[in-house]
């Protein structure tokens, strides 16, 4: 049986990869993918905890998080599309109207 720690380590590693990606990537879509990776790392962590605590709660939480993530994805993609329509770019370095 795989130990709880392995799952938690995997979750932490995925979360860190996502977090680093948010800072290093320049394409808004890829940044969002990194955020999704972080969310799924959290899901993995919660599922692992739920499995080892023998509690069903965690499984339900993951459902909730998945739905919320889907709603967020829909809104996020819509925002990216509307920006792209106006500006024809999704590179965050070129998105710089407000500076101060």
């Amino acid at each position: 049986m795989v130990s709880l720690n392995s799952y938690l380590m995997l979750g932490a590693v995925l979360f860190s990869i996502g977090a680093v990606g948010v800072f290093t990537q320049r394409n808004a879509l890829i940044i969002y993918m990194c955020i999704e990776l972080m969310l799924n790392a959290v899901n993995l962590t919660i599922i692992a905890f739920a499995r080892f605590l023998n509690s069903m709660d965690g499984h339900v939480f993951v459902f909730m998080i998945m739905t919320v993530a889907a709603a967020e994805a829909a809104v996020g993609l819509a925002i990216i599309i509307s920006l792209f329509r106006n500006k024809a770019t999704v590179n965050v370095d070129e998105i710089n109207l407000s500076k101060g």
Partner: protein
Amino acid sequence: MNEYISVLIMLFLAAATAAGMIVATSLIGPKIEFADKMEPFECGESQIVSSKRRFSVKFYLVALFFVIFDIEAVFVYPWAVLFKDLGWFGFVEMMIFIAILTIGLIYVWRRGALEWE
């Protein structure tokens, strides 16, 4: 054997629904033949184009709606598993949930987001 009866009924209903839909479309649907429609794989897009071509943004829109309405199924599965334990209370609650989703669908439809053109 008895416990498989329900599975058989379910299989039958599924097959009947699918067959019914095919028959209904061939009976009721308009039959206009033109070149695009006669292509082997009909999906609203030309089949042989450059792979680096940009997709129409409308596909995004449909995908967004699909994601939103599809993901709600995640709540229906646990409900279905516990349907008997939850009883009427669970039924009413799920109906309210689906009613709210339906309002969303009505909104999307009336605002014209489902129109392709």
